[in-house]
């Protein structure tokens, strides 16, 4: 028993030791960072916040089940390719992505999203030149109320 236990333990330790260096980036990345990398093809750290993207959302949600958000931008529509929306702390941070064409007239997208807890909401635009711009806003999801 003891011997067997020792062996499994050391095996775990071994795996841990050997695996750690190689896997470290994956462990360190948050679910959000993974999702952004997967869907945008770039790291979140390379996406810059910009006043060119306007994200409207409540400061405190009236219901986490139904949070109205609006993304707009004055960047000419023919320079914009795609829009993504993420919620950092949702179990699945990716909410949606929208392909934009000149037929859209301008960058304007309004929807309602679900939020499990207080979190940042992000709207990221990919421009035709390959760059990304982002707006972030914290939305508080609260149960406690007092007047």
């Amino acid at each position: 028993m003891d011997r067997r236990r020792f062996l499994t333990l050391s095996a775990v330790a071994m795996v841990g030791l050997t695996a750690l260096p190689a896997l470290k980036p994956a462990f360190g990345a948050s679910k959000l960072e993974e999702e952004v990398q997967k869907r945008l093809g770039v790291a979140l750290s390379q996406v810059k916040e910009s006043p060119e993207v306007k994200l409207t959302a409540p400061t405190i949600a009236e219901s986490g089940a139904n949070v109205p958000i609006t993304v707009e931008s004055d960047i000419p529509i023919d320079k914009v390719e795609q829009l993504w929306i993420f919620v950092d702390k949702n179990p699945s941070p990716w909410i949606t992505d929208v392909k934009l064409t000149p037929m859209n007239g301008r960058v304007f997208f309004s929807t309602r999203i679900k939020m499990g807890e207080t979190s940042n909401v992000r709207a990221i635009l990919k421009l035709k030149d390959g760059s990304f711009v982002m707006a972030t806003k914290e939305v508080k999801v609260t149960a406690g109320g007092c007047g």
Partner: protein
Amino acid sequence: MSLSRRDFIGVSALGLSALTLAPYAFARKPLSFEKLMEFKPHGNLTLVFTSDIHGHLKPLYFAEPMNLLAPEPLRGTPGYLTGMDFLKYYNIKPGSVEAYTGSCVSFIKLAKLYGKTGGAPQMATIIRAIIEERGKDKCIVLDGGDTWVTSGIAVKTDGMAIVDWLNYVGYEYIVAHWDVTVGKEKFLDIVKNKLKAKFISYNITEEPFGELVFPPYDVIEKNGVKVGIIGSSFPFTPIANPRKFTEGWSFGVRPEELQKYVKELREKHKVDLVILLSHDGLPLDIALMKQVKGIDIVISGHTHDVTPTPVRVGDTLIVSPGSHGKFVGRMDLEVRNGKLQSYRFKLIPVLSEVVPEDKGAKKLVEKWYKPYEKEFNEVIGTTHTLLYKRDTVFSTWDRLIGEALEDYYHGVDAVMSLDVGTSPGFRWGTTLLPGQKIKVEDVYDVLGLTYPEVYIMKRKGKDLLALWEDVADNVFNPNPLYQQGGDMSRIYGVEYELKINAKQGERIRNVRIKGKPLEPEKEYVVAVYGGPPPMGVEPEKKNIREIVVDYIRKKKEIHIDVKKALNVKVLDHPYNIDCYWR
């Protein structure tokens, strides 16, 4: 140019009020009505306003808080000033009427000296006197909401007693928060059919498509000045109060939309002056005015703050006229060439024994009170402690309510009894002086909810803690746009340490329930009232008012030692417990 001129007159007005203060600082009563009203008329337009009357038609005592705990970035700013700090900031002499009405300092002594404040007949006298002096065509009369609710007479008459008074005085504009808790249908009936004042709100829209429910603003011409008035109702009403009162409506803080309406008023309607009549709360309005440009004056209700001089953010002046009928705000404005040039401002203290009663308003109050006098005037006990409600984390009224809940739920068997009783951190409620008799109406005035049901339920330690952390973030978030403007829930049976500048989820520490450390997985018996009704729990047979009235009746003599009863240790902010008694 116009700025410095405005500055000059603003400052000189302050100097004036400071001067007039001095003679009756520490003076004994004979204070005249004329002295209280003293105001050198100025300019071509006058705003007359009140806010957060909270249904009080009769004079009462109302103590300003000993503590307004502020997150670090907001410390020492209007909205968080109490006691001597408040007096120093506004250059007010201790012992003066202004000190009595605006701060906690020596409240008990000064209350005996100056008497009660507020009262509908007294407020009517002041408002009508200003209108008479200036002429109706120069005055706009406004109220910032929390008006026909949360008192005995408000509960009994569905707010109509106060609505009747508003019509009598001639109020012209109003916004809302608790006012919706008469019920959505009744609320709509009041604002559409009963109330003469115009109800305006830019931030109430229909779900899900966002059509406005009420006019967002109104344009009015007075004495040749074109004024645009935008209304803002309490942005977090759907969360702070049960959802049924606002079902289908969305509220919120909406800086972009507000900016759009300001622009519309300036460009389309060519107004000379833009006023925001707001129930956002002072800290939120200060933060909001850093984002929204072009508003001249904000009349800011909700947080019950007293601003003896306006708070300036850029070119915007923000004033908050206190609560419970303690003040009538007067602001004289010189508006010329489409611009606010200068102003003079005063919060007129409504000392009930000094201000003569308006006969018509008095008759109106008597008429509405008549059916309830007997019930309201029943004496149920005597308090030997100052019973106050306002404070960020603790109050004697809430302590008494906690005791009453514990006593009501004495346990169905020897093993189980109430562990925790929570009382919401509302900012309204009457104050009783030591030695004062407690009447049934006083309990109504502190628990004047249209939903007074009590719920007793079991909750796990970790869930309770998460809930309290949530409330703490609504109170202590360093960004006012994320605060709800209420105080911390009062948690009876629980002791804890509070670090207000910690991250969300880490503010509440070393929680002890009935003297033992909180166990995350243990189920506790909890009594609650005044929040959204918990799902699947039937309300108790007795409501919170009945429970408290019965308890006071049984105990008769109420003694609470603040030092002993205080259950919160604040780790990173001073906490005062003697201001009232100094």
